[in-house]
């Protein structure tokens, strides 16, 4: 996979791990447990002692869900789409009451913890996956947004390799893109603006936005989620960003944008200072 994370700032959240506040940090495309130097050893010790380690288990959960398309269904579509799972994700959902992450059972959730309780003995695979997802999406500190970007990047890579989405995932990919484009368009043109009609094109295809009779016809590749939406560049200077490319130094970005009049696209150049 290419270095899709270039340009994305690090994100960090604190979790209660074994009674202490620990830091999880996402940087350069990976999630790290800052307070666990030797992760493998700690993992082994925790397993032997029958205890859980919230930080390490959240990292495992992240790895399990880094290509999970349900992240797009549950995750935020944009700043106006706020989840109510911060701080106690999992509580009261699906009959499961997860409070922590344990390696032994493989289930996870996020909650402020003073000590490490044992997980429910019986939990279906689906419920466990659901609880893990909600735990990750409840982390805060920008980590849920980075998870969305991670999943998008993984699928963009697959699409680049195969050329077209697998039939069983196509609807999910299109919906993931549609929901976020719709959210952006409503911010940009207003909720009562023309309805967007989206066509997901190949990764190498040329994006475009055209005003038609009462609606806006939009053609974007799935990778727009990685290059534009996840970078927070969807609307810039009141213009909709169709595509973003960075120069080799990753400090200069060329954005292909279009104004609300949907006339010819213009290039906006962004440069990060030294």
């Amino acid at each position: 996979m290419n270095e899709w994370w270039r340009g994305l700032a690090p994100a960090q959240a604190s979790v209660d791990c074994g009674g202490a506040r620990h830091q999880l940090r996402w940087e350069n495309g990976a999630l790290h447990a800052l307070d666990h130097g030797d992760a493998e050893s700690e993992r082994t010790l925790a397993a032997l002692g029958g205890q859980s380690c919230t930080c390490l288990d959240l990292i495992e959960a992240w790895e399990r869900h880094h290509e999970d398309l349900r992240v797009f269904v549950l995750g935020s579509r944009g700043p106006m789409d706020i989840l109510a799972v911060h701080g106690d994700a999992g509580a009261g959902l699906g009959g499961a009451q997860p409070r922590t992450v344990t390696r032994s059972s493989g289930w996870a959730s996020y909650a402020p913890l003073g000590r490490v309780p044992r997980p429910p003995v019986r939990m279906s695979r689906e419920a466990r996956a659901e609880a893990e997802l909600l735990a990750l999406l409840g982390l805060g500190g920008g980590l849920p947004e980075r998870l969305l970007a991670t999943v998008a990047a993984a699928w963009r890579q697959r699409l680049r390799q195969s050329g077209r989405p697998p039939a069983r995932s196509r609807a999910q990919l299109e919906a993931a893109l549609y929901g976020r484009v719709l959210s952006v368009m409503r911010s940009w043109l207003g909720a009562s603006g023309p309805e967007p009609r989206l066509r997901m094109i190949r990764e190498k295809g040329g994006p475009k936005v055209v005003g038609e009779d009462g609606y806006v016809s939009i053609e974007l590749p799935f990778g727009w989620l990685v290059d534009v939406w996840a970078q927070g560049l969807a609307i810039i200077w009141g213009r909709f960003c169709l595509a973003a490319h960075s120069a080799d130094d990753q400090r200069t970005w060329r954005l292909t944008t279009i104004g609300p009049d949907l006339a010819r696209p213009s290039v906006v150049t962004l440069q990060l200072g030294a």
Partner: protein
Amino acid sequence: MRVTGEKLILDRGPRGYRPWDSPLLEYARALIAIGAIKPARARAVIDDYSLAEAVRSDEGRQHYGIAMAHRGRSRRSRSVALKPRRVVPCDRTIEDANGALHVRHVTLSEDSTSLAVTWRPNLSGRRRSDGRGHMLAYVGGPRGPVQRTLTDDRGTSVGTGFSGGGSDEQWQGHLTADQPLAPDTAWIEIDGERLDLTGEAITCEVTIEPLAEQRTAHAYLWHRLAIPGFPGPPEIEGSIDALIAAGALEPDDPVLTEIRAVRDVMPRHPRMPYGGRGRSRSLPEPWRSLLRRPGDHGGPDGTITLSAVTPPFDGFSVAISSLESRADGFSVEVDVAPGLVGRGPSRELESRELAWWAADERGNHHLGQLGSWSGSENHTSGEINFWPALRSKARHLSIMPTGEVSRAVITIPLVWAAAGGPGEEESA
């Protein structure tokens, strides 16, 4: 379907968390009806977006767990043919210190015994009113019918349970025996008070008919339109969107214009004024005759006890035991297998539903909907309320529970009309 889910998430503001009437359910059912998606796949999408909705509000998070737990217990209802029954009209009131129990009719079959009753408790010192409440499934209690013991001519005695609705002044419902009594018993005793079962219910002609062939998408929408929402006409735009998106309909299909025209003039409630007075002439039958008599209040008053059981059709079996006509409408007491459980996220997506049509020999149509009911996934006992009122000149009425490909036609002779006036029950 997922695109609709995306809109649902972004539009959820004023709607709140209401998975029981999620637009995705209508959308999914339409796609399943035309074979465009398998129920399990549709259910997975609905579950995804139901959870996505739930995690966006505290209220949703509370309700989601309950909904999922309930769905976990839900099983596909079984299709079972109802057995023939003996329905005996009665008009007997048994009074004691607690009140008066009026027995309207007795239904006996191999697997159940029930009495259709009206209970008026003794309210000495309290003012009575004619108002009826809307409590349902009342079982025993200080003001309901006390538990009764039934005995048949074989000497078998059994207890009973009451289910029904009412108020302090009057309860209407059924006393159902804990065990079935002999179906051919000559009498039953209620706490020692004997009722001779000598009357005979009217026997009705029952036939099963296939529905006229038409495009699956059209048939689905017409069928949905005949199944009222809560309240008012069903929301069918989601179904239309789904059928267009799936290529089963064209947006400019002239039948869609007819369907929307019918939807637009349907009343929010059978007793409310119509929106389409004078606009029904251009509608297709049976809707034209249904909607041309706004708020008709000229129906006869009377009750007919009858015995009709259909063979299975469209996966259902229906039994009717009485018809009661009032000035503003009429109702029938029915048993249906499998059960007519409500719509909602816990209902199986592929579950079929019945539309309740009725028509007299003069071509006047009526539409019914489930009123008070009790039962389970496998069986429902309840009341179907029809509108508009019966025409006083009608001589026969056909009750037509209608599935997606066939319907039963139960033709009832309206004997009160032949007697020269309503209000008197007759046996054939």
